[in-house]
């Protein structure tokens, strides 16, 4: 069983023998490139999420693994076996679609039985497996229902049951929770996580919802314009984004442009319009290079007077306070017009009592922010 908090263990498993390996996968439609040079190694039992905006190529990549789309070039291996020569119905990969795709003229049980019939599983064995998998998804009493009689969440669970009943080596999920409302989605996420743990399946999961990706995955591959922008554990991607895109896509970031003055292996110092700022060195940055400091609002502390103790200090005017329920977002305007926001959790004692127009001081640690190259892409070490 993989431990989500032990990246080293996952790495060891990956190197020992990947369950799924994708090499240089590319898909072009005429002059349009949907997917470009995707490389990926997934360990047995790993939950990898493809995250990105619409049209970034994540679904296309998934469909190529499933066999529903043909790659223009590149290779795929499942447990060492090349996938391209295999037609989709021989790949033994389970797929859960966003629109569920439950056969409307079949009952729940018949839907789940279908893949077993395709594999000529004997009846008593099939019955056993169907009962077991329906119990697993908490629909044990729904055998005879038709899909039209089920709610969205129930339909999704049947789709899941159907995709795992034949014990595939790989499970692909294409935005399965996209059609559900927020509360239901969160419930289903817990379900999926629970099932993944129980069955120890290898899963490729596509979503554009970052909180979903952060919650469920061992690793996340962030897609943009058909390429994997950065791949790593949720913590790695959130704490140490290597590109501007990832810093902006996952969570919120404030960006302060400047030029690199000094670098060490850990820290980079840049000269910005607001003075010298320091942050973690995200990749191959040399002195004089154009760079960007990315800091998350929740890392910034706001106070009336500068304490002088923090690595990074900025002064500005409070523009707007936005009430978010769990926290308050304070939007500050710096001297040159740059907007920076900070997130302050609302606690029992109401501190500060700031008003728009107040002069405020912002401070944060150099370990709480990253310096990225300004063209948006840092050198990819993996």
């Amino acid at each position, binding site marked *: 069983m993989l431990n989500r908090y032990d990246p080293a263990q996952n790495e060891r498993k990956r190197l020992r023998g990947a369950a799924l390996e994708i090499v240089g996968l590319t898909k072009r439609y005429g002059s349009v490139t949907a997917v470009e040079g995707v490389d990926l190694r997934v360990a047995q039992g790993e939950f990898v999420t493809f995250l990105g905006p619409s049209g970034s190529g994540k679904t296309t990549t998934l469909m190529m693994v499933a066999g529903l789309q043909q790659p223009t070039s590149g290779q795929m291996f499942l447990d060492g076996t090349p996938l391209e020569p295999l037609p*989709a*119905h021989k790949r033994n990969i389970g797929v859960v679609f966003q629109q569920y795709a439950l056969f*409307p003229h079949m009952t729940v049980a018949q839907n789940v039985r279908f893949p077993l019939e395709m594999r000529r599983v004997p009846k008593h064995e099939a019955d056993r497996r169907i009962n077991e998998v329906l119990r697993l998804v908490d629909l044990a009493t729904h055998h005879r229902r038709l899909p039209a009689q089920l709610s969205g969440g129930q339909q999704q669970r049947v789709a899941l049951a159907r995709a795992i009943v034949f014990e595939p080596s790989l499970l692909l999920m294409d935005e399965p929770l996209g059609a559900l409302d927020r509360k239901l989605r969160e419930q289903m996420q817990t379900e999926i996580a629970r099932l993944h743990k129980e069955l120890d399946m290898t899963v490729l999961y596509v979503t554009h919802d970052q909180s979903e990706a952060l919650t469920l995955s061992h690793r996340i591959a962030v897609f943009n314009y058909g390429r994997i922008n950065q791949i790593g554990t949720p913590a790695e991607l959130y704490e140490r984004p290597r590109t501007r895109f990832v810093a902006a896509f996952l969570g919120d970031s404030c960006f302060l442009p400047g030029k690199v003055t000094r670098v060490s292996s850990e820290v980079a110092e840049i000269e910005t319009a607001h003075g010298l700022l320091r942050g973690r060195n995200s990749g191959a940055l040399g002195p004089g290079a154009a760079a960007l400091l990315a800091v998350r609002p929740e890392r910034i502390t706001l106070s009336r007077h500068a304490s002088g103790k923090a690595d990074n200090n900025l002064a500005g005017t409070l523009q707007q306070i936005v009430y978010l329920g769990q926290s308050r977002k304070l939007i500050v305007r710096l001297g040159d017009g740059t907007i920076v926001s900070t997130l302050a959790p609302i606690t029992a004692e109401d501190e500060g009592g700031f008003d728009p127009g107040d002069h405020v001081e912002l401070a944060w640690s150099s370990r709480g922010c990253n310096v990225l190259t300004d063209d948006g892409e840092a050198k990819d070490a993996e």
Partner: protein
Amino acid sequence: MESVVVPHILPAALTKRRKAPHVGLLVLPAILLLLVLFAYPVAWLLLRSFSTPTWGWSNFAWLFAHPVYLRVLLNTVLISGTCALCCAAIGYPFAYTMATGSERTRQLLGFAVLVPFWTSILVRSFAWIVLLQRAGLINQILLGLGLAEHPVPLIYNRVGTLVGMVQVLLPFLVLPLYSFLVRINPIYLRAATTLGASPARAFWRIYLPLSMPGLMAGSTLVFIIALGYFITPALLGGAGDTMVAQLIQQEVANFGNWGHAGALAVLLLGGTALVLFVTRRLFSARDAWSVM
């Protein structure tokens, strides 16, 4: 005079001065035309079956007493049924190709299927006479290829009737079926593929069952229309292929017997209504699973 647009400062009572004639009255010319020239005479004809020559069921009794007429009624149902089957057999692959093919395929096939709508039945029946006669093109081909020794009788019999009718009725199956097939979500077939179904099995287990309502609707339509057909069986059929419509014509034009004609009309309309009713009951239950 339309209702005047009055500024809101005036009391409300004044705005109701002149009420314009309701626009709905525009339906009257068409309605009157249809009531006088259609509804009334048809009702009158149907009534005659019970009222002429005296009130009672004598016309129906006479009909059922004569095996000739019963045979015609049976033939009508048989021929219509065969038409529906043939149209289904030819029309399903045709509509399927239209629904799943390229835009050009769709346009080409769609155009071909619409041609019968726009061209006169007479012209088409004449064309079949030319083609199916003893010295016609089909027989020439058959004899030339050695598939037959003597000219095959293809016209003035059941074959000719069916060939002519199926050509006319095919669009009535293809078009409703096509518009149904086009609404089948391709995701079902993709899901079936990922679950291990080869294309053939995916078609048999998933696509075909899902397309059944459309096929049934089209076949029923063909059957109902064929029941009342007159021109094609008259021109291309033989004595043994007489259908109800021809009987009605004979009773009116040759014998002036409105009672008999009315009775036959009642049977024809009644049969049509029965088929419609039965198929609606049978197939609305299936719509429970149209999650499409």
